[in-house]
């Protein structure tokens, strides 16, 4: 079984596309669409990488990242953050909170796969 990637995103068609390309690349993909319960989901089954959207219902990607980094069980999980807002201050905020990589939408499939491969090095 391939390494686990958790996609936290609320757009079902984006989830489907990312799941498809990562599964085809050999990753085991889990998905979650609700910000409020995302940290519980992560703790219940810590993945090898999290792909995290910023604008989520219930709790923003920034808040999820902050809680993730504050928790000893999850603070080392690499996070690839996806956002439709590419403003400098969003990028700076993500970096302050400890994001591993920041990617703006619309991204290309090749970029996502390359980043995932890089961030989850053997």
């Amino acid at each position, binding site marked *: 079984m391939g390494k686990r990637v958790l996609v936290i995103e609320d757009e079902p*068609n984006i989830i489907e*596309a*990312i799941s498809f390309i990562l599964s085809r690349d050999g990753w085991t993909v889990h998905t979650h669409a609700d910000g409020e319960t995302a940290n519980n989901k992560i703790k219940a089954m810590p993945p090898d990488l999290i792909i995290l959207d910023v604008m989520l219902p219930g709790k923003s990607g920034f808040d999820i990242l902050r809680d993730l980094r504050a928790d000893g069980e999850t603070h080392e999980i690499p996070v690839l953050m996806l956002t439709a807002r590419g403003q400098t201050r969003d990028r700076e905020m993500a970096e302050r909170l400890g994001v591993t990589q920041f990617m703006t939408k619309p991204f290309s499939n090749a970029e996502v796969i390359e980043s995932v491969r890089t961030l989850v090095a053997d």
Partner: protein
Amino acid sequence: MPQRQLTGSRIRERRTDLGIKQSELAEKVGISASYLNLIEHNRRRIGGKLLNSLAREMKTDPSSLVEGAETALLDQLREAAAADRAAGAELGRTEDFAGRFTGWSNLVVRQARRINDLETRVKALTDRLAHDPQLATSLHEVISSATSIRSASSILVGEEEVDRDWQRRFHRNIYEDSQRLADASRALVAYLDAPSDEGSVAMSPQEEVEAYLDAQSFHLPYLEGDGTPQHAPTLRSKAASSLLSEFRRVYKEDVQAMPLDDFSASAMELNHDPALLADRFRVSLSAAMRRLATLPVDLGHPEFGLVILDGSGTILIQKQITGFGLPRSAVCPLWPAFRAFTQPMQPIRRDVQLPVEGGGRFRCFAIASPVGPASFDAPPTLEVTMLVRAIAPSGQPADPVGVACRVCSRSGCRTRREPSILNEAPN
């Protein structure tokens, strides 16, 4: 060019421009020609009813004749200089410049104001792009749809085989997302094409309301009667219209409690004392102060300024008074209004002195009152009403105050927040 010399000179200039003889004008306003001559040569002070009468006979605004008009112009010129210190305006010669080149001075002030308005507008537009929830939602929808379409279509056109079930799903997704993209694009275009509300962008809602009220001298004749208002103006922005609506509601209540004819006569009789008027009409002191500020000067009443602030010190409403030049923000913390905040419900009456030679003395009445109903569960929210009236300079003590630190020449002030652009004068 002492400022106090200007009022008489202006009256003389206006009269000669109109080709009216001194004796004719004197007769029309009920004074002797020799007295008018003394006024015109700045040997007698003038104000109140006589000034209003002279202005009316010469078909001009009283404020254009009084000396305080120069104070306001000078303050505005200094503000303009402060906004661009690198230009090196000769601040020490501001009065000379304003006196010799009034038209040019007005042009400088107008252009400085225009620059300020444009900068405010640019900032508002920038904020709108960054924070407008409607715009953010539309853009998010567009980008999300585009992301999904790009990703799905890349899968379909890629070199790797995709089975038929997945092909159908991605085709359906692309179709759905293209519909979303079309809808979101239309919404975005409609939003960006909407008529721009320039006024609301250039001005805050409070400034828009004040611009309207200033044009009416804060007196709204259509609300003075008993009947329904015949004329209910609307302002450009909804926020400003809402604020004006609230102002009119309070104005109407004040009119009902203090009808114009009765209040005007009582104000004359009681020397415009807000406490005595509040007692006579059985209204709150703040209501009496508001009502005094709406009395028309052409009925012979003195000019009043009015400032209403909330607990944060933010000015909610202000009516300008000649010679004080009330700013909208960064005001002097020595105003009696702020003293009132420390003693809620205690009326405050203080004479204050601006750092202006030959004038700049005002009497301020202020009171901090709770807003809204009392609650066991929350502290009261206070609002201060301050009424301002010009008084003659005298040897009596007065609180030294300023308008705003930046244009205040007072030295050694313990409340100074920022350096002055002026040469500081002794306290």
